[in-house]
């Protein structure tokens, strides 16, 4: 069923009787050409592009719980392509372009809102680094602007310019960046994939990978064995657990990133803002809540919850940057488990096991990467070769020394 304003009106006048389930609830078949493990944003996007771009229809997505229940439903909804390094920027810019056409591609309104992002800087060193980054963005075909303090003040008068411990010296802006309604992204990809014939199988937990003489034959699940020619794993956050079933150890640690939302407020923040002298980034949702976050709790964990010190650290940054939010109330906090890789960049690659493919290590980058991650993983699964914009995301890059380390903090995942 096609969605449109007319459809909404028609249904409204006929008691909404015509709305169908957004996706089927099929039982698993015995065998698929491709099985994608993980009904999160990346898994569902992979299914969408596999079916729509790469003509693969005999595909299943297996999800241990409810689709969209992982990090795609637990993030701060920011979409941007403001990366510095060659390995990253082309990929994220590709993702940005997919975002820009997503509603039309999916016929589902994921509320992609290009209200822009500003990364504030507070020292000359940061300015130089942002200059290098902004130039890299432009050289890769993305948009970037460098604002000085006065220009920042014009656009964001409520920031702390008069009593700041670390005065704002300017900011790097990407106007095309913004936010999207995170749950809707998962639902939109699911709906589209389902319409293309992909089986989305919920409450079907993968309990094992059937591997015989070096080849992956399918997945053992709580709904029995499901055979497949190829199995793709897109379960960021749980990568260690699932790939562990194949006896693989990864250059990844699992960490919790907390996120927060305030009570609903009338519009006050025009764009996404990140603080350069503390752990704080924020945007305002269409419902009016200030959606914000900061740094990892910092210790390995698979628990989707964090602790107070980080809550305080984030709010300290927030009030230091925009003192007006002191009287806004924090409504809800939650934690998402991140695949923190050893250089802060993701992995989309084959594995030593034939027929088993891996997509993970997304760190904080996961949500904004959703469309490109799905597109590139679909490309890899369909053609057995990396998509041109994802060639750097190799599993062996740490062995060869080809790290993609935007922050320059090295092999310590909790610092990325």
């Amino acid at each position, binding site marked *: 069923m096609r*969605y*449109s*304003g007319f459809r*909404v009106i028609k249904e409204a006048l006929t008691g*909404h009787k015509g*709305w169908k*389930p*957004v996706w089927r609830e099929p039982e698993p078949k015995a065998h698929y050409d491709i099985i994608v493990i993980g009904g999160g944003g990346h898994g569902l996007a992979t299914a969408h592009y596999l079916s729509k771009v790469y003509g693969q229809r005999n595909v299943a997505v297996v999800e241990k719980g*409810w689709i969209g229940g992982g990090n795609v439903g637990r993030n701060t909804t920011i979409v941007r392509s403001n990366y510095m390094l060659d390995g990253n920027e082309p990929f994220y810019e590709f993702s940005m372009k997919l975002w820009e056409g997503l509603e039309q591609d999916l016929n*589902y309104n994921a509320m992609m*809102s290009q209200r822009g992002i500003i990364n504030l800087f507070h020292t000359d*060193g940061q300015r*130089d*680094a942002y200059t*290098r980054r*902004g130039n890299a963005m432009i*050289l*890769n075909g993305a948009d970037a*602007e*460098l604002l000085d303090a006065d220009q920042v003040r014009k656009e964001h008068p409520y920031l*702390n310019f008069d009593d700041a*411990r*670390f*005065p704002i010296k300017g900011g790097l802006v990407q106007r095309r960046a913004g936010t999207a309604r995170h749950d809707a992204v998962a639902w939109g990809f699911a709906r589209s994939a389902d319409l293309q014939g992909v089986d989305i199988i919920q409450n079907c937990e993968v309990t094992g990978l059937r591997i015989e003489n070096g080849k992956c034959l399918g997945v053992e699940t709580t709904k029995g064995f499901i055979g497949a020619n190829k199995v793709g794993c897109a379960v960021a956050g749980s990568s260690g657990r699932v790939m562990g079933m194949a006896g693989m150890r990864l250059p990844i640690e699992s960490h919790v990133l907390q996120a927060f939302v305030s*009570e609903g*407020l*009338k*519009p*006050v923040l025009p764009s996404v803002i990140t603080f350069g002298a503390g752990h704080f980034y924020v945007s305002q949702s*269409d*419902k009016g809540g200030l959606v914000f976050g900061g740094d990892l709790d910092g210790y390995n964990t698979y628990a*989707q*919850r964090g*602790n*107070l010190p980080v809550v*305080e650290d*984030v*709010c*300290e940054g*927030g*009030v*230091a940057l925009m*003192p*007006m*939010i*002191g*009287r*806004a*109330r*924090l*409504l809800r*906090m939650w934690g998402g488990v991140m695949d923190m890789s050893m250089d802060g960049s993701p992995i989309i690659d084959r594995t030593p096991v034939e027929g088993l493919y891996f997509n993970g290590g997304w760190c904080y980058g996961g949500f904004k990467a959703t469309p490109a991650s799905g597109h590139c993983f679909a490309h890899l699964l369909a053609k057995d070769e990396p998509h041109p914009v994802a060639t750097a995301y190799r599993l062996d890059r740490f062995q060869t*020394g*080809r*790290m993609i*380390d935007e922050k*320059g*903090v*090295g*092999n310590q995942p909790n610092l990325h």
Partner: protein
Amino acid sequence: MTQTNRLNGGQIDRNTSFSFKFDGRSYSAHPGDTLASALLANDVRLIGRSFKYHRPRGLLTAGSEEPNGMVELRTGALKEPNTRATTIEMFDGLEAKSQNRWPSLKFDALAVNDMFSNFLSAGFYYKTFMWPAAFWEKLYEPMIRRAAGLGSLSQEADPDEYDKGFRHCDLLIIGAGPAGLMAALTAGRAGADVILADEDFTLGGRLNSEAFALGDQSAQDWVAQAVAELSSLPNVRLMPRTTVIGAFDHGVYGAVERTGDHLATLPAGKPRQILWRIYTDKALLCAGATERPIAFENNDRPGIMMASALRTYANRFAATASQRVAIFTNNDDGHRTAADLHAKGVTITAVVDVREDAPTCYDYEVLKGAQVIDTKGRHGLTFVEVALTDGSTRTLECGALGVSGGWNPNVHMTCHQRGRPVWNDALAAFVPGENLPVGLSVAGAANGVMSTHGALQSGAESAANALELTGVLPDLPEAEDAPVSQTPFWYVEGCKRAWVDQQNDVTVKDVKLSYQEGFRSVEHLKRYTTLGMATDQGKTSNITGLAIMAEVTGKSIPEVGTTIFRPPYTPVPIGTFAGRMKGQEFHPTRLTPSHYWAKERGAVFVEVGNWLRAQWFPLPGETHWRQSVDREVRQTRASVGVCDCTTLGKIDVQGTDAAEFLNRIYANGFAKLAVGKTRYGLMLREDGMVMDDGTAARLAEDHFVVTTTTANAVSVYRHMEFARQCLYPDMDVQLISTTEAWAQYAVAGPNSRKLLQKIVDPEFDLSNDAFPFMACGNVTVCGGLRARLFRISFSGELAYEIAVPSRYGDALMQRLMAEGEEFDVTPYGTEALGVMRVEKGHAAGSELNGTTTALNLGLGKMVSKKKDSIGSVLSEREALVEPDVLRLVGIKPLQPEDKVTAGGHLMNPDGPIDAAHDQGYVTSAVYSPILNSNIGLGLVKNGAERLGEKMRLVSPLTDLTVEVELVSAHFVDPEGERLRA
């Protein structure tokens, strides 16, 4: 203004009158009122507008679970949006405004949404607004955003202060109702350290709202007596106005104490709120229970409230929403409300009880087996329509309807570590499950024990169990012990626009649509309909939503799923979490020993980590920073300059294995460094990237002083402790930071020796032979003050660093300036320092960016292959030693005045300008007053082999393209003759 709906009795002080304003209109109230009770007493039922349809709304509850009665409290910078009227303690002069309406509360333009509600069903926005694409940001979204949101921020800085604190106890009791008070008495009398916290400003919980007696006392008198005893115990700490917001790992509880919200103005220096971190092995949750509504057509009109809330307003606050009240209930507790209001003289038009076997009453009519099927009254309830058992309907005239659908235990805290509550059929409610936070137990209604007697008893027993107390428990007062008698009843058959989540405007119809479209798990239901996502976090709506979903799916409620709760229990001002760490106090400020002197000199300061460092020292007449910096550089290179380098990390390394230890820490060798000598040290991370650089001075066989960069002082120390304790546990090495202990100054320039000779006591020979380049040693200055002297140079000039105990740093700087006058000495700041190091080609922060190897920086030869040192192995990986890896070079514009931009990228002179053809980037750029040219350092593919090549420096971000030449990074004195002079 007369309080027409004020009843007799209650816990308000009628001897004092407060006046307050709501939407500009003045009313009167009494101490002990909340804004909510005062509004009701003044016959104000319409308080706000709903989120989506802007429906007129009044109060639903009398507590912190309130979804509807939200206002903007106070004015100006103190404005506080979305404040629940039910929790606002009345003070004289209080001002509040209704919100989410325009132009006025009574006539809200956006109420049209209500008429079009049929088009705005759950999730409608996912299905439309897609065409044309560009319209989303321009038209649709601004429309949605303007309509959405509730209250508004002042957009001014929050003027109030907030504190944070830490408390420890043996038992934290959360909630001071019957269970909590009894638990506190039990634990307190036993001598345990107890903290009793309650979100209310009056301890007692439900007991404040009830008319029944405890023993031979009124419930309120018993509470007063218990509180009096507890306050007399030194080991018990009572914390009213304190909400425990979360249970975190290992017995850490967050609690917010509202120390100033009930005051008209804060006393100077006092905080508005305090965030307490409470550390305790044992905690007891006595948070009580929350009454739940029943969904029926138009159940959201002002005047339709929880039955228990009506009871609270009548008994505790002596206020009623109306003089004519009806009750709609599925359980006996609803009848208690009717009885209490009747006793207060309120007319009970009828009690509508869904149960055929409902109790009879002779004071007023009870309609058994009846249901409320619709209501009337746009801005306030006027009539309710009731369907009777015989199928006929009847209209009741009333200004308020009390609804009781039973009670839900407040299990929130038990879920904060992702524990799941379990379903209890007898209560038709979720009760605490198995996997509670370690050390937390639950008592009273929160644990499903619904009678007062049961609460008192479980409070006493739970406290005793938690603390493993032996001996007899305190006697309990006689108290009601009625069994729970109810028939689960969630919504009236056939209702459509019956509100489940009142604030977010989620109706029974929306829940059914959610099912129809396949959003059937709790998580999908919540996310698709926004049920339970409002500021009340679904305290009064989640279960009803679940129940409806259960019915349409034909599953049981627990099968459909449970909703677990996250912190905070109630919303917390962001300022409270920030405390005092804001504004200038956001981070500690570190000052150098010469700071006060530099400030007097008019120095301009710059933040370097937490340090403030002098950036340059403007002289009278210098209008542009470049004038000052150029002069400082020229004067230093021509004669002598002094720079405060105290901020460099200094680490004392002692022990018989000190030299071997440094051998492992640094990529280059240290074993053979002679006593009295200093050496440049290159430190790698284990991944082969350069971590830091500095110097190590050998003061004795077993004693080194190591310096680090300012930025990395802390991480390098940590790294060295890691190596010492985890990698080489048997090495005899002791480390301690001495960064703060010594004021250290760089004295640089051809005349630096002459100047120091006037400072250092004569018995120390500073001649080039006696104290050559890289020499170090202990000396005395100014007549006997112990000092350390290092002959090292960052500027490339003949230079020293001299260190004295910090307290004398200020005096030494002044002495250097005085004695240096004859040489025209200048102090120089971080800018001049930066210029001179670039002129000399020294890599610094912007080159040591964490992605550069020794090879990249032209220091490859320093990495010794003859010994084991951290990072050497991984620095050999193939991609790190490829021929075209980035190499450090100097960058000179063909036209000296052309700007060199740090962060600019380098492209071949001809050929495309894009990422694919990127040759490298500029790391540092300065103007060299010595070369009279802009210059820079950069990292260029295979740069070392490309010196002399012309390239294009491009910075599209700043619209810049400059022709440059790659040159040696050593612009000044490449042979290093000056520093050896």
